[in-house]
């Protein structure tokens, strides 16, 4: 088969795989390590990296390492811009954050991760340092649980079966998640009390699209010292549920 007839362009897939090796915990990686992480031959990695350096998507740091270059920010922002709900939710989320001295997050699922597409925090408050683009585990975060709570149990079980084995915390988290899902049937929201992070409590709800399927998880969270489970349940829950209903009714479809 001639090269131009291939439906799948391997060189592109490999380059994107290299670019996705970088993370907040690993912002700078050397060529040898990239080869080890991707399982690609070193000369291949070198050529792909060389290409991305030429285009500015990777930059050299400290002599022998690489890290993503500024143009990746533009790519990410374009991806976020294609989700109008992220912008529509900002004002009510900031309202939630300010009213309850908390942090509010809106996340969509990318595999076994929840990606914050909006994040609003109250100034000078003890909250987790997470921003738009942050990737939280689906199975242990409140934003993940909020989304999962909106799924039919059978559909949820498929995700849990698929991603449970990929999450080292799964055995420990599982009973908490199951209890939270039971609570959601009764309450319409989930509480994540110290499971995502010790001393940090959150409440989450699903945000459904017009087809009735949960498209996002929406959360409100704060330090356990100020945001007890009782406080979240009694004070925050009614407001959070109302915000979710309002956003669902004013649903703006993704750009087509």
């Amino acid at each position, binding site marked *: 088969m001639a*090269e*131009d007839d*291939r*439906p*799948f*362009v391997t*060189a*592109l*897939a*490999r*380059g*994107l795989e290299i*670019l*996705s090796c*970088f*993370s*907040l915990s690993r*912002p700078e990686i050397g060529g040898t390590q990239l080869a080890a992480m991707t399982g690609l031959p070193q000369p291949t990695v*070198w*050529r*792909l990296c*060389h*290409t*991305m350096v*030429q*285009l*500015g*998507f990777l*930059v*050299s*740091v400290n002599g022998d390492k690489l*890290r*993503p*270059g*500024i*143009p*990746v*920010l*533009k*790519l*990410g*922002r*374009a*991806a*976020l*811009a*294609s989700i109008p709900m992220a912008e529509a939710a900002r004002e009510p989320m900031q309202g939630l954050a300010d009213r309850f001295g908390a942090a509010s997050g809106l996340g969509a*699922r*990318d*595999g076994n991760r929840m*990606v914050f*597409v909006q994040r609003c925090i109250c100034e000078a408050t003890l909250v987790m340092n997470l*921003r*738009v*683009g*942050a*990737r939280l585990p689906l199975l242990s975060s409140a934003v993940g649980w909020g989304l999962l709570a909106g799924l039919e149990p059978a559909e949820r079980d498929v995700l849990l079966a698929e991603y449970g084995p990929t999450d080292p915390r799964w055995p420990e988290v599982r009973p908490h998640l199951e209890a939270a899902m039971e609570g959601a049937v009764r309450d319409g929201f989930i509480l994540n009390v110290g499971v995502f992070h010790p001393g940090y409590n959150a409440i989450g709800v699903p945000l459904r699209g017009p087809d009735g399927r949960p498209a996002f998880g929406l959360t409100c969270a704060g330090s356990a010292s100020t945001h007890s489970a009782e406080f979240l349940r009694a004070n925050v829950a009614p407001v959070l549920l109302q915000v979710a209903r309002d956003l669902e009714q004013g649903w703006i479809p*993704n*750009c*087509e």
Partner: protein
Amino acid sequence: MVQTAAEAALPGRQFVTALARGLKILGCFHSARPSLSVTEIAVALGLPQPTAWRLCQTMLSLGYLMAGDAGRLRPALAVLRLGYATLSEFPLAELIRPYLQDLADEVGGAAGMAVRDGFDMRFVQRCESASQLVLNLRIGSRVPIATSATGWALLASLPAAERDAAAGVSTAWDAARPQFRAALAAFEHDGFIINPGVLHPGYRTVAVPVMGADGRPSFTLNCGAAASAVSAEQLQCEIGPRLRALAALIAASV
């Protein structure tokens, strides 16, 4: 794959054209144009339609693109894995550091990022080459707006009526003003400003303003070296344009 003319201009047979094209496809999307058809992409990049289709198909199958109604494509959340999640958490001064280090190494001098602080510019980032002969400045150091390249870049980006007030009344400014005016004339053409040694004799520096969304200068970037290390021509023809491109990249992306 056959290279387009723009690709052929890029150096090296080690260049992986398919990867470059895929990244350019992702770069076609922006907030004013959040979704595109394969045909629109092919036209925008000057690619044959089947080539654009294969590249898009690859990114669809990997989850980097999503298909909506009428086959229009838009970037998916997985795009945030491609470095965005890493860099979006970086403070700006850290984000820019590798670029400044590269410039500093290039000239055998130093490069920095500075913000306005009274009648001074204060460095919030500073990278030096291994060369011994650089001005003794570090993060937190200040230089006068009136006499430094980095200060001149700020002045050049301000409305003319604000410049004297920003530089502050001083004999140093009175002495420097004619040289600033000459440099300003070049700035209006070049987009960068060169200080030929007013701050320190025998030290040449080029600087650019980085503009914020409000149309005001947010901070400045500079790069300089001893006159023995860097020629006026190198600053004018290589370093100045690179700083200008960096400023534009930051303004467009951050």
